[in-house]
């Protein structure tokens, strides 16, 4: 043996592969963080209040002045091949200019000045306005000019009053009048069979008082007016009641800007959308996405666990089970829109129509009773056989196998008969037939959307649960059986708790997949603008038949379906950022649950 074999080799074989794996991971991380940073920067920059400048530009042979904040600078190729710089300015005042954004050539800009005393106000219609105030015209005849010392405080006070009044109007109209409408609807249905004239009159009287009150408040909203001037010199009037918020972009320091920034984010998260979803907040979409994902997770977990337990623990591991497993795995590859179509056909029109209007093609009562009785009889026999068909005597094993086949056939017959009994019952006319032809459950809603997505993510949960069940060590199972536990008791008390961390992994993956899917939702219950939330304070608190808003669909709608695509672009980025954060938050919660479970059941390999 030479000396050389005892020395350290100068290059260890195989180390290069470590670098390769690190490089792969780094590339992935850079891509992900790059994407997140891009979205974050574009998304958050929407909320930051930029300084406003006044530009004097050449328009033809005239000079005009426009005020606005610089959004983007870009190079545009001129026909002769040279480049011209152009600016995209946010001018607001969609009612005056028809557009909120404007492109101006650098060459046309004569002068640019930062002026103080400019206001930016968020309005109920036509978006933001950039202006210099002239005067406040109060309802009692007072006039406060823009130079007046008390102008700003008076303006702030009036805007606050207006916001409060608007909330009251909303409460009256949405909640109280909404309740009256619901009661009227029920009374109307009852009026077909009973005399409820007095009650209807009472409700109408109540409605009248509320309507009058709302009317008065609405009038008050238009009482005070703001007279303001645009940079071009044009004077316009605005109801103070329609202004939500204002600030002075050039006169606030860094703290002021941060304050406006945070206020804008707060508004975005908690306010209702306005103006075809291009202004205002997206709270209903956040809420809808959250509720739908939770509902989906709640529905997929029990089904997935039960299916996996049967496949792994109870079914005889032969060809049939393998085929079933292959089918389940393939289900994960089906395009989501196909699930949407299935959800529409089966859940919405099929089951939903059944719930609404009852049975379409009933069978004669005599046959129905026979089917029901047959179902009960065959279930009873099958259960009896499954519990009593046990023998260890070798000579009786042939008989046992025959009876097992009989039992299996009986189960299949039972399922068939039960479906027949339910779907063809001549006595069931639907729970909501009074409201027909307006469908209640026979149209898209959050329940059907969640069910469709639960079906779509079922394979993920089944596979993860099966893996987790297999990972439970055999010794612990044998110990449980040796202690006198039945198979189900072993599964329920020992195997399943140990497998829970693995199941949670499956649920996390399912939630991540489900929260991001949009295509199946579009046909099973998502809308551009939902009038109410699926969960609220009116009975029965969970309104499973309501349509809802969803962040993913919101992004699609804003990006491709809105009339003002430039105005919507900032919202698209902000919504994307929010969707990512929401999914991350839900995943973190699920991971936290899994870690806690894992610590409790150390024996598990997951």
């Amino acid at each position, binding site marked *: 043996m030479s000396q050389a074999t005892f020395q350290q080799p100068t290059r260890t074989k195989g180390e290069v592969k470590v670098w390769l794996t690190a490089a792969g991971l780094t590339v992935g991380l850079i891509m992900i963080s790059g994407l997140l940073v891009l979205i974050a920067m574009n998304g958050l920059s929407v909320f930051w209040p930029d300084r406003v400048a006044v530009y004097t530009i050449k328009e033809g042979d005239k000079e005009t002045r426009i005020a606005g904040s610089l959004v983007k600078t870009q190079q545009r190729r001129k026909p002769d091949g040279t480049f011209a710089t152009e600016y995209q300015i946010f001018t607001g005042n969609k009612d005056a200019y028809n557009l909120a954004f404007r492109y101006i050539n650098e060459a046309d800009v004569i002068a640019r000045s930062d002026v103080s005393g400019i206001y930016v106000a968020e309005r109920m219609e036509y978006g933001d306005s950039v202006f210099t105030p002239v005067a406040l015209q109060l309802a009692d005849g007072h006039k406060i000019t823009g130079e007046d010392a008390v102008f700003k405080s008076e303006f702030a006070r009036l805007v606050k009053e207006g916001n409060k009044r608007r909330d009251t109007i909303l409460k009256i109209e949405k909640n109280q009048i909404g309740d009256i409408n619901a009661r009227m609807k029920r009374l109307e249905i009852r009026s077909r069979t009973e005399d409820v004239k007095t009650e209807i009159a009472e409700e109408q009287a109540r409605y009248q008082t509320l309507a009058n009150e709302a009317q008065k408040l609405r009038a008050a909203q238009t009482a005070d007016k703001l007279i303001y001037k645009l940079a071009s010199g044009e004077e316009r009037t605005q109801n103070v009641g329609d202004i939500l918020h204002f600030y002075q972009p050039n006169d606030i320091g860094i703290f002021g800007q941060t304050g406006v920034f945070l206020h804008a984010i707060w508004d975005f998260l908690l306010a209702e959308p306005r103006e075809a979803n291009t202004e205002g907040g997206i709270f209903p979409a956040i809420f809808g996405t959250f509720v739908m994902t939770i509902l989906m997770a709640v529905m997929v977990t029990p089904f997935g666990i039960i299916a996996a337990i049967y496949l792994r623990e109870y079914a005889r591991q032969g060809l049939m089970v393998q085929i079933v497993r292959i089918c389940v795995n393939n289900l994960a590859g089906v395009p989501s829109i196909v699930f949407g179509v299935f959800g529409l056909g089966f859940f919405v029109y099929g089951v939903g129509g059944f719930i609404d209007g009852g049975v379409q093609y009933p069978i004669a009562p005599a046959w129905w009773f026979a089917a029901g009785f047959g179902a009960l009889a065959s279930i009873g026999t099958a259960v009896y056989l499954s519990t009593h068909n*046990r023998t260890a005597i070798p000579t009786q094993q042939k008989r046992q196998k025959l009876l097992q086949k009989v039992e299996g056939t009986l189960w299949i017959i039972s399922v068939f008969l039960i479906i027949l009994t339910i779907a063809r019952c001549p006595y069931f006319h639907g729970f909501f037939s009074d409201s027909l032809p307006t469908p209640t459950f026979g149209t898209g809603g959050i329940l059907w959307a969640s069910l469709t997505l639960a079906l779509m993510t079922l394979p993920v949960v089944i596979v993860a649960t099966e893996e987790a069940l297999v990972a439970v060590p055999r010794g612990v199972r*044998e*110990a449980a*059986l*040796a*202690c006198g*536990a039945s198979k189900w008791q072993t599964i329920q008390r020992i195997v399943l708790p140990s497998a829970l961390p693995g199941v949670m992994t499956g649920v996390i993956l399912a939630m991540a997949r489900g929260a991001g899917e949009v295509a199946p939702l579009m046909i099973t219950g998502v809308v551009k603008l939902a009038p109410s939330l699926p969960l609220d304070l009116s009975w029965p608190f969970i309104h499973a038949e309501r349509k809802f808003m969803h962040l993913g669909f919101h992004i699609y709608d804003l990006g491709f379906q809105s009339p003002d695509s430039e105005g919507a672009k900032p919202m698209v980025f902000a919504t994307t950022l929010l969707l990512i954060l929401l999914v991350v938050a839900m995943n973190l919660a699920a991971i936290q649950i899994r870690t806690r479970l894992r610590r*409790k*059941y150390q*024996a598990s390999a997951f």
Partner: protein
Amino acid sequence: MSPVTPNPAFIKVDHFSFWYGPKQVLHDISLDVPEKEITAFIGPSGCGKTTLLRNINRMNDLVDGIKHKGDIYIDEQSLYDPNVEVISLRKRVGMVFQKYNPFPKSIYENVIFSLRVAGRNGKNELDEVVEKSLRGAALWDEVKDKLHESAFGLSGGQQQRLCIARAIANRPQILLMDEPCAALDPVATLKIEELMHELKKEFTIVIVTHNMEQAKRCADRTAFFYLGKLIELRPTLDLFSTPKDPQTEAYVRGKFS
């Protein structure tokens, strides 16, 4: 049910043959295990001693494709009678495995597992059973103030004693032990052997062991198996000092293992 005088054939294996699928693992075994004594099964690897042990509480039912001929009786009751419910059989026959396998629960919950699955949940009864079983397994003093901590916090020897406590919690008549000290150090092994001498006053113990010294120390009677056949079954001292069969002699002299 058990008579005042110990039954000399408490477990009776009667011309028992056993197949795993096409392979015959036990050939026409007949032996008697006396009540309240320790009987050891010894023999080289693959001789069928663990298979026979596992048949006594019908743990082999878990395997597919098994076949048997002959019978096994516990206290004159056949194990393969069609009326026998395997779960209640396993409540009368406890088992301790080679690799200790406590459940991922607290010590308390581990010991009373057999009671819980039988539906007995009265707190007083459970507390009593826990103390009695842990004392019976010589573990009470070490764990009495951490009963509700995880069982995984114990050492290997303690975990195996916990498994013994779990096996005796339901007061079974028979205790089957499949190489219980195989995964333990000598100190823990000694503790468990001492424990077995205490336990045999109340339980009938059958132990499978690879360690002939252990059989010499603990067992009252020893059975030697080879290639699925019972070669010799005699009181331990006789088997080791004056073995009748030449194969037994070769084994106990260490000529093969």
